[in-house]
């Protein structure tokens, strides 16, 4: 098995903001949780009426707490099921399967200063980050954009803990992050970390690049939700089998449901780990990832099964 798993029990569920629930997991065998670096995420497996779902969530608990993990889940209105399942079907006492921590969004040790930019539920990886930065006496500031205070999970606690190092930009109070102003005067050695919806990441990175920031100092975390779409079949050449991808299922999930392991890290179209060779297709590849280049997309030789889909007569991949 390429992705070792941990069986956990849900020991607490709390509503931490409008449409946001926080889940606490402890190991069923009573053991301690693997150590994780701030910014890491886990993948939670869900058995939704016989359909396998696997969603990534950033760990938000304290890295020094080895007894439990915590994640927070925003109920997405257009959810294809993952967040709705977590909100409606998971109860305290349930048993679930999670992955080991996956570290795609690390803090950079050489930074002189860390600027953290959160959009909505993107706040979660920054909770352990701030704890570690604070304890080690490093310089940081958090800019937290949210639709309304009711949706701003953990804001008051963060303000209490970190004081003026936290600033909130609240949409319905007319607040807006002035990215240019924020980035133009940052001293050398500053790194920015953005965890937010893609348009906000693009905006921040766009302004930073315009101002001449070095690529080495820009970091982002984004999990694109696999979009729903017309069901389709996919032939797996090496495995000699065919899988059916339902409307609300990703290609990756349907391959996994057939018992075939595919390497993954982010499950959100960003890391490149699940890249799969397309052998033949008659139709159109629907690329939804942000990993493949435009040229690669046009060439039609690769697909990222965690988020991308297919429309047409037949698709054969190398798996």
């Amino acid at each position: 098995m390429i992705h070792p798993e941990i069986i956990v029990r849900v020991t607490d569920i709390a509503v931490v903001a409008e449409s946001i629930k926080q889940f606490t997991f402890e190991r069923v065998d009573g053991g301690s949780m693997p150590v994780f670096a701030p910014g890491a995420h886990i993948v939670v497996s869900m058995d939704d009426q016989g359909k396998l779902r696997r969603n990534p969530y950033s760990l938000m608990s304290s890295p020094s707490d080895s007894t439990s993990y915590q994640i927070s889940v925003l109920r997405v209105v257009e959810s294809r099921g993952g967040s709705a399942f977590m909100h409606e079907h998971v109860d305290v006492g349930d048993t679930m399967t999670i992955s080991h921590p996956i570290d795609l969004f690390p803090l950079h040790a050489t930074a002189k200063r860390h600027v953290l930019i959160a959009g909505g539920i993107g706040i979660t990886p920054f909770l352990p980050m701030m704890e570690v930065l604070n304890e080690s006496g490093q310089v940081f500031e958090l800019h937290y954009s949210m639709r309304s205070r009711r949706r701003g999970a953990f804001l008051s606690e963060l303000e209490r803990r970190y004081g003026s190092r936290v600033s909130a930009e609240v949409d319905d109070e007319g607040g807006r992050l002035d990215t240019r102003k924020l980035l133009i005067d940052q001293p050398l050695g500053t790194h920015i970390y953005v965890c937010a919806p893609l348009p906000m990441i693009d905006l921040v990175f766009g302004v930073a690049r315009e101002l001449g920031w070095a690529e080495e100092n820009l970091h982002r975390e984004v999990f694109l939700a696999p979009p729903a779409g017309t069901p389709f079949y996919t032939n797996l050449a090496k495995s000699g089998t065919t899988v059916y991808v339902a409307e609300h299922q990703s290609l990756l999930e349907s391959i996994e449901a057939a018992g075939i392991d595919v390497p993954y890290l982010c499950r959100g179209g960003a890391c490149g780990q699940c890249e799969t060779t397309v052998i033949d297709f008659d139709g159109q590849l629907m690329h939804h990832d942000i990993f493949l280049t435009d040229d690669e997309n046009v060439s039609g030789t690769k697909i990222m099964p965690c988020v991308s889909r297919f429309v047409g007569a037949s698709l054969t991949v190398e798996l």
Partner: protein
Amino acid sequence: MAIKSRPVYAGFNVDITAQQHVLALEGQGADALLEKLAGGHPMLERAEILYVATGSDHDAALRALGAANYWLAPTAEALRDRLSEILAHATMCTRLYVAGTEGFIGSIVQLAADFGIANASIIKEFRGSQQRRVQCVHCKGFNDNVTISPFQCVHCDLHLFVRDHFSVRLNAFQGVCINAETPDIIPPSVEMYR
């Protein structure tokens, strides 16, 4: 022969997005800039040029570029001191360039690292002598501008063979005693790095 551990330098390409350009030039490294900006360039309005001549003569040509700031440093040491002052007050919208010999480039890369500038974000061009900076593995002393091998360590007088491995951390090649078993025999030196 290419040395794998030896850094490769992409060459001077102006990053037009930068709000401030800081250029550290040593000797013939000045040509990297002069050739690139032959017809003038808008970046010069936001450029700070530091130059140490070390035997070359580009002072007049560099001065004529009309950069926002230009300083002819008396020594590489003085240039680095001034550069430190500039970087201490610089923002992330600054781009650092360095051109000159390998030893000089390495010293600027090390200095920049103290300010949190990643090696990869520095624009570099190698110019001038292939001479090497060599650390004696026996006394740990550094020898600058080595052009022959073997050579005599200026610190401990051992005769050192220059190995083809460059340490980024030390910003130096390694020199190893060539006649430890036969101290009476001193092999002839050959000019290797002009």
